C-alpha cells in the first residue's frame, strides 16, 4: 500500500503540525535561555564559576516549566468536551486534534522526564563546581559554605536540593508506573501514583525558594570584568594599566547579587488551577447517585444497564465513567453510552461486557442469580440495586460521525457501543444531520453477539427503506469464527442474515468499493475495535486511492 501524500496530509497533517510547533517552541526556549545565561552580563561571574552546567540547567529548567504547564491541559476532559460541543468555536480539523489529547499529554510527560534527567545532571555538575570553585572574590555568589564542601551535603541542606530530590523520586514513581503493561494489568497502581502529581506541583513551586543562583544587579556601575583590571597587579602590568585606567573609572562599586524570585508558579499555577477546578466540577457533578431502571442480560456475557439521572444531557458517541462503591470505592471505569437521553425518553443506557473482576462483581450485585441460558431476561427488582455514581459525559471521536457527508463505522465486538448510540439518534430523526450515507461494518467472533443490537439495526434499516432512502444505511456483518456455523433463524432479522458474511472482512476491497461509489468526497472512517483492525484501517486510509476519495481516520480508544 503506497502512502499518498494527500491522504497522509489529511490524516496526519494536523497532528504533525502541532508536534512541530511544540518542538519548535521547546527548542526556541532552550536556546534563548541558554544564550541568556552564557552571554548575559548579569550572569558573567556565575558563569565563570559554574561553566556550561549553569546554562544547560537553566535552559532545561525553562523547558520543564513550559512542559509542566502544558501537561495538565489535555487532561481537562470536561473542558475538552465543551470545546468539542461548540461547533461555532472550532472547525472539524481542530476537533480532530482533540482526539490526540492523551498523546500530547504523554509527549509532554516524556519531555519532562528527559529534561529532568538533563536538568539533574547539569545541577549535579553545578554543585560540584560550587564546591570546587568556591569564590573568595564574591562570597555572596557561593552556595557552598566553604571550599571543598561535600556536594552531597550541599544538596541535602538547601531547599532546592531537598525539593529536587523529592521531585525526582516522585517523577520516577509516576514514570515507571505509567508504562503500557502496568496500565493494562494494574490500572490502580498507575492511577494512584499519577495522582501524586499534586504533591509534585506543590514541591515544584517551592523548588526555587532559597535562591541558589544569583544574578548581578548593578551592571552599569560595576561592569563584569572590571575587578580583574584592579587586581591584576603582577601580570602584564604594562598593557593592562592602560586599559585598566579606563575601566577603573567605570568600576565604581562592588558587585551586588540578588537571587531570582521563583518563576515556576507563573507558568504552572494557571493550568493547575484549571485542572483542580475541573476535578472539583466533575466531583460535584457526579455527587448524585443514579437510579438504575432496568438490567438486561444479553448473550455473550453482555449486560445492558438503563439508568436515570437528573439534568443529564449527552450527545451520541460520548462516554461516562461509572463508580460503584459497593464493588470498589476508588475505581472508575469508562463505558460508552448506547442510548442517550432524549426529549421522549429520559433514560440513558450502557452495554458492558463482563471481562474483568470489577465488571464481574458489578454484575453479581446487579443480577444476584446468574442464569446460564442465553435468553434475554429483563428483571425489575428495584430494591436490590447497588448505589452507582456516574461522571461525565465526556467527548470522544465518534461524535463526528454526523459531520461528514459519508461515514464508515467499523466496530469490533463490543466496540459497537458508540455506534449504537449514533443509530438511535438516526432512528429518532435522520434528516437533520449533514450525514448522507453511513457504512456500518460490524465484525464479531460469534453470531450470538449480533443479538445485542439486532432490533436496532433492523429498525433503522426498515425506517430508511420506508422513507425512500435505501442507500443511506449500508450494513455489513461479519462473523470471524468460522468453526461452528449457526444461523439467525428469526424472520424479523432477515435484513441482517442477508447481509451476514462468514470470515474476516477484506478491508482493501471494501475501501475500494466505498471509494468508487463516493468519488472525490471526504469520508470519515471511525474505528472502535482491536488494534489489528485499527492499524490496518489507518494504513489503508493513508494509502493512494484512484477514485480521489479522501478517507479521514478517527479512532476510539480508552486506555
Amino acid at each position: 500500500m503506497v502512502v499518498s501524500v494527500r491522504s497522509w496530509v489529511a490524516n496526519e497533517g494536523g497532528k504533525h503540525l502541532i508536534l512541530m510547533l511544540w518542538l519548535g517552541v521547546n527548542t526556541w526556549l532552550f536556546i534563548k535561555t541558554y544564550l541568556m545565561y552564557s552571554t548575559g552580563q548579569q550572569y558573567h561571574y556565575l558563569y565563570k564559576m559554574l561553566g556550561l552546567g549553569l546554562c544547560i540547567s537553566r535552559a532545561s529548567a525553562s523547558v520543564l516549566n513550559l512542559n509542566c504547564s502544558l501537561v495538565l491541559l489535555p487532561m481537562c476532559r470536561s473542558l475538552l468536551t465543551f470545546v468539542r460541543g461548540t461547533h461555532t468555536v472550532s472547525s472539524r480539523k481542530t476537533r480532530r486534534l482533540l482526539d490526540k489529547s492523551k498523546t500530547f499529554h504523554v509527549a509532554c510527560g516524556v519531555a519532562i522526564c528527559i529534561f529532568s534527567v538533563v536538568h539533574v545532571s547539569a545541577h549535579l555538575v553545578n554543585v560540584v563546581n560550587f564546591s570546587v570553585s568556591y569564590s573568595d572574590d564574591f562570597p555572596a555568589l557561593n552556595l557552598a559554605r566553604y571550599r571543598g564542601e561535600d556536594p552531597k551535603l550541599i544538596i541535602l541542606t538547601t531547599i532546592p536540593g531537598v525539593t529536587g530530590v523529592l521531585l525526582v523520586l516522585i517523577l520516577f514513581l509516576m514514570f515507571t508506573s505509567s508504562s503500557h503493561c502496568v496500565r493494562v494489568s494494574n490500572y490502580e497502581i498507575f492511577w494512584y501514583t499519577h495522582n501524586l502529581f499534586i504533591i509534585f506541583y506543590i514541591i515544584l513551586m517551592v523548588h526555587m525558594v532559597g535562591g541558589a543562583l544569583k544574578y548581578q544587579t548593578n551592571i552599569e556601575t560595576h561592569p563584569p570584568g572590571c575587578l580583574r583590571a584592579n587586581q591584576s597587579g603582577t601580570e602584564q602590568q604594562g598593557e593592562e594599566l592602560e586599559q585598566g585606567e579606563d575601566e577603573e573609572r567605570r568600576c565604581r562599586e562592588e558587585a551586588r547579587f540578588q537571587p531570582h524570585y521563583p518563576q515556576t508558579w507563573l507558568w504552572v499555577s494557571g493550568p493547575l488551577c484549571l485542572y483542580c477546578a475541573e476535578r472539583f466540577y466533575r466531583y460535584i457533578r457526579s455527587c448524585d447517585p443514579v437510579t438504575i431502571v432496568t438490567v438486561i442480560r444479553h448473550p455473550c456475557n453482555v449486560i445492558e444497564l438503563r439508568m436515570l439521572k437528573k439534568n443529564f444531557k449527552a450527545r451520541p458517541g460520548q462516554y461516562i465513567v461509572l463508580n460503584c462503591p459497593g464493588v470498589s470505592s476508588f475505581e472508575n471505569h469508562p463505558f460508552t453510552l448506547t442510548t442517550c437521553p432524549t426529549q421522549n425518553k429520559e433514560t440513558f443506557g450502557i452495554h458492558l461486557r463482563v471481562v474483568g473482576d470489577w465488571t464481574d462483581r458489578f454484575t453479581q450485585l446487579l443480577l444476584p442469580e446468574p442464569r446460564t441460558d442465553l435468553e434475554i431476561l429483563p428483571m425489575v427488582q428495584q430494591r436490590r440495586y447497588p448505589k452507582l455514581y456516574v461522571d461525565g459525559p465526556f467527548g470522544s471521536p465518534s461524535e463526528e460521525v454526523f459531520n461528514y457527508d459519508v461515514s464508515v463505522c467499523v466496530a469490533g465486538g463490543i466496540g459497537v457501543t458508540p455506534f449504537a448510540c449514533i443509530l438511535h439518534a438516526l432512528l429518532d430523526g435522520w434528516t437533520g444531520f449533514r450525514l448522507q450515507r453511513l457504512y456500518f461494518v460490524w465484525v464479531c467472533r460469534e453470531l450470538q453477539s449480533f443479538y445485542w443490537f439486532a432490533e436496532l439495526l433492523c429498525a433503522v434499516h426498515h425506517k430508511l427503506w420506508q422513507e425512500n432512502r435505501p442507500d443511506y444505511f449500508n450494513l455489513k456483518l461479519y462473523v470471524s469464527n468460522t468453526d461452528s456455523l449457526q444461523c439467525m433463524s428469526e424472520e424479523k432479522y432477515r435484513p441482517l442474515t442477508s447481509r451476514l458474511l462468514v470470515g474476516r472482512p477484506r478491508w482493501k476491497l471494501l475501501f475500494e468499493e466505498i471509494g468508487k461509489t463516493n468519488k472525490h468526497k471526504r469520508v470519515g472512517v471511525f474505528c472502535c475495535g482491536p488494534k489489528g483492525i485499527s492499524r490496518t484501517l489507518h494504513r489503508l486510509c493513508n494509502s493512494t486511492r484512484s477514485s480521489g476519495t479522501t478517507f479521514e481516520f478517527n479512532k476510539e480508544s480508552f486506555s
Partner: protein
Amino acid sequence: MGKIEWAMWANEQALASGLILLTGGIVGVAGQFRGWQFAAYAVAAGVFVCLLEYPRSKRSKGTSVERTGQYCFTVCVKAFGPLTRNYYVRAFLHAAICVPGGFMLSTVLGCVCLGIASLIYLVAAIRGEHWEPILPRKEVRKPVTESIKNPPQNPPPRPPAEMRRKRVDDLEGAAYDNPISVTDD
C-alpha cells in the same frame, strides 16, 4: 479491589533504576570524579540488574506481554531456579546492591530508585508472588487416537454361492435374511 500484581510494577522500577545506575556510573567513571571506583561498581551493578530484570514474569491471571527479545534472558534467569523465582531473594539482593551506590554523587539517584524497587519487591514477596518464565507455548499435537477403527478382516457372512447366484426369474424370492447379524449392535 482485586489482586494487584506488585511484582510487575517492581520489575519496571528495577529496570529503570538499573539504567539510571548504569548512566550514573558511566558519568562517574568518564569524569574521573572523586570516588570513581564506586562508579565503576555502579556500571557493573547496573548491567547486572538490567539483565536480571529484563525478562518479564508471566502474569497469574491474564495475558502476559513479553519484552522484545526476552526469550534468551528468560532461559538464563530460569536456570538459577529458586534464587530468581523467589522475590524475597530479589528484594534483599537489590537492597544489598544499591548500598554502595550511595557513596558517590552521580550514583545516588540510582541507589535510591533501586531501594524503592526493592521495597516493592518485598511487598510482592509478602503477597506470595513469584517469578514465572514466559515460555513459548508448545503446540501439543493431538495424538492420533484410536478413533480409526480397524477395518474388518473378514467379509460379511453370506450364504453359500449357489444361493447367492442371481435368480433373474424370481427376484422377490431371491431376497434372503442374514443368519448372523451384520450390524454391530
